[in-house]
């Protein structure tokens, strides 16, 4: 392979141009790896916090029905399905909470705390008191910290619940939670049986939450439950379709950005190669006189593009890894609840990002090499030789 010989010598003898194009490619690769790691970090944080904070599947009553009747059988059935880790039936209703002159509209959730904890770990978010304090059907309530603040109440205080069609009734605050979401302002939990009584609904529920071991299996399972039971089963993906679409769109935007970065580095490489081709005209003519085919001339310059690309990719991967690791180790100087409870920037360093950034860079580099290589191979040997 004399083509490889000639290509490597050209690169070795053009130190400055080589350095320039390696820097261009490695910066592009490095920046893109950092970006991918950050995007991956934010995406996984967003999805993790979503799948942690809500049921993976929610079962709603059949169309034109308000309740799910005879839900105990359904509960058992769902529990037996593969991959189900927890099932929590709930009775949900709107109410107003009142304390002295303050009143706030809330969503009252009647649940069994033990079941609910298996679907969404509510214990984890408790600021004060115990979530399990509403285990028995008494007049105890657990509410969000913002709601508590708005009502100006604290632990042990008594709030009055106004439920449509029922006498006002007092609840004692036995727990305050903080999730870092808007629910902190609108949600309160009470015992399910207590709420069913207040609404005089009998033993029915308005919905059921399900947790799976694999959140990504929820779409399929939800469809299965839907078909099998006739109830309306909604996966978390369907429920958060907007966020997921937003993520996808921003990923698309980022790809556009990647193409621009790689395009710029590609121009850098093309530029260096065009310079080499112009400088080496006499040499190219002589190689042709010696019997080098046009194909081989083309190959020489494509190889140069590939070698420059590989050097850039190697440096870029190291750069990208080092920078991503460095960013991941930075401690954020803000209160953790502002960033989904994180104290570090979310960075996910994934092997596949290195592969795709490298392959992408190599492809762009070789495309960048095509123009100069074609130009070299199309030269008229006589003109090239006598150009010197």
């Amino acid at each position: 392979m004399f083509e490889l010989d000639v290509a490597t010598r050209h690169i070795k003898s053009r130190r400055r141009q080589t350095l320039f194009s390696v820097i261009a490619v490695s910066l592009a690769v490095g920046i893109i790896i950092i970006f991918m790691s950050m995007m991956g970090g934010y995406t996984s944080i967003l999805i993790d916090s979503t799948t942690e904070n809500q049921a993976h599947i929610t079962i709603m009553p059949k169309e034109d029905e308000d309740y799910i009747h005879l839900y105990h059988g359904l509960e058992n059935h769902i529990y037996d399905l593969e991959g189900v880790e927890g099932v929590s039936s709930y009775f949900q209703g709107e109410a107003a909470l009142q304390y002295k002159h303050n009143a706030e509209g809330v969503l009252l959730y009647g649940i069994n705390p033990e079941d609910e904890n298996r679907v969404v770990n509510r214990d984890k978010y408790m600021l004060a008191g115990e979530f399990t304090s509403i285990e028995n059907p008494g007049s105890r309530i657990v509410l969000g910290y913002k709601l508590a603040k708005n009502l100006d109440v604290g632990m042990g205080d008594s709030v009055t619940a106004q439920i449509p069609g029922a006498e006002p009734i007092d609840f004692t605050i036995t727990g305050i939670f903080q999730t870092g979401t808007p629910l902190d302002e609108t949600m309160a939990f009470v015992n399910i049986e207590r709420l069913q009584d207040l609404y005089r609904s009998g033993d029915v529920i308005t919905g059921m939450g399900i947790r799976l071991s694999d959140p990504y299996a929820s779409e399929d399972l939800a469809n299965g439950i839907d078909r099998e039971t006739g109830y309306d089963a909604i996966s978390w993906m369907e429920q958060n379709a907007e966020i997921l679409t937003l993520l996808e769109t921003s990923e698309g935007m980022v790809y556009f950005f990647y193409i621009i970065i790689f395009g710029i580095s590609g121009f850098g490489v093309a530029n260096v190669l065009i310079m080499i081709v112009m400088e080496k005209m006499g040499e190219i003519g002589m190689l042709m006189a010696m019997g080098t085919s046009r194909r081989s001339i083309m190959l020489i310059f494509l190889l140069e593009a590939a070698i420059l690309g590989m050097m850039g990719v190697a440096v870029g991967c190291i750069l990208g890894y080092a920078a991503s690791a460095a960013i991941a180790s930075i401690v954020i100087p803000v209160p953790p609840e502002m960033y989904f409870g994180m104290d570090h920037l979310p960075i996910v360093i994934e092997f596949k990002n290195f592969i795709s950034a490298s392959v992408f860079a190599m492809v762009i580099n070789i495309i960048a090499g095509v123009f100069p290589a074609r130009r070299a191979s199309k030269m008229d040997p006589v003109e090239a030789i006598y150009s010197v």
Partner: protein
Amino acid sequence: MSEKYIIQIKNLTKIFGDGVEIKALDDVGLNIEQGEFMAIMGPSGSGKSTLLNQIGILDTPTSGTILLDGVDVTKMSDKQRSVTRNKQLGFIFQYHHLLPDFNALENVMMPLLINGVKRSEARKTASKMLEEVGLGDRMKHRPNQLSGGQNQRVAIARALVNKPSIVIGDEPTGNLDSKASDNIYELLRRLNREHNQTFILVTHDKHMAAKTDRTIQLVDGKICEDSRNGNGD
């Protein structure tokens, strides 16, 4: 007997022109025997380089035929032309055109490597060739570490390393002083006698031309004189 001619040129015409047409070669006919050592002379612009480039299949004629060893090269594909140039033709130009990033030995190896010869074998053949041109002690030197005459010797070794049947030189001593030119001519003459290769050299130097077997004069793209010099054996 057409067989004894290594080069047969018939009615060769080359017209350059965008707009104004220039007839660089005008209906040239020329037969050259195997082993001839000949000079092409003529005023500037008379078509000497154009003729050499046609024989070297670096360019295509407007009309006419060129047979190298009985094969019409004007009908060859690009690929065949490359192969023929590699195996049957050796080129020496006024400027040495050595690859600056390779040393003398590597430069001389290049035609062999292009031909697909194994590296170890190419190295052996190339170093023998360099010794033959008197540069056995300069193999590892790069072109910028050698004198003009030495570089031209490396270029000669490169032109001859594939044992081509035809060697063409376009003013091969044009950049050298008269002493170095003499040496190069002596070398070419010796190689011609030892290997019986055909040499066609363009020169402006009457003194040099007189030492060849045969001299042709070109004027305005036509051969106006074709003389034997009586130096042959």
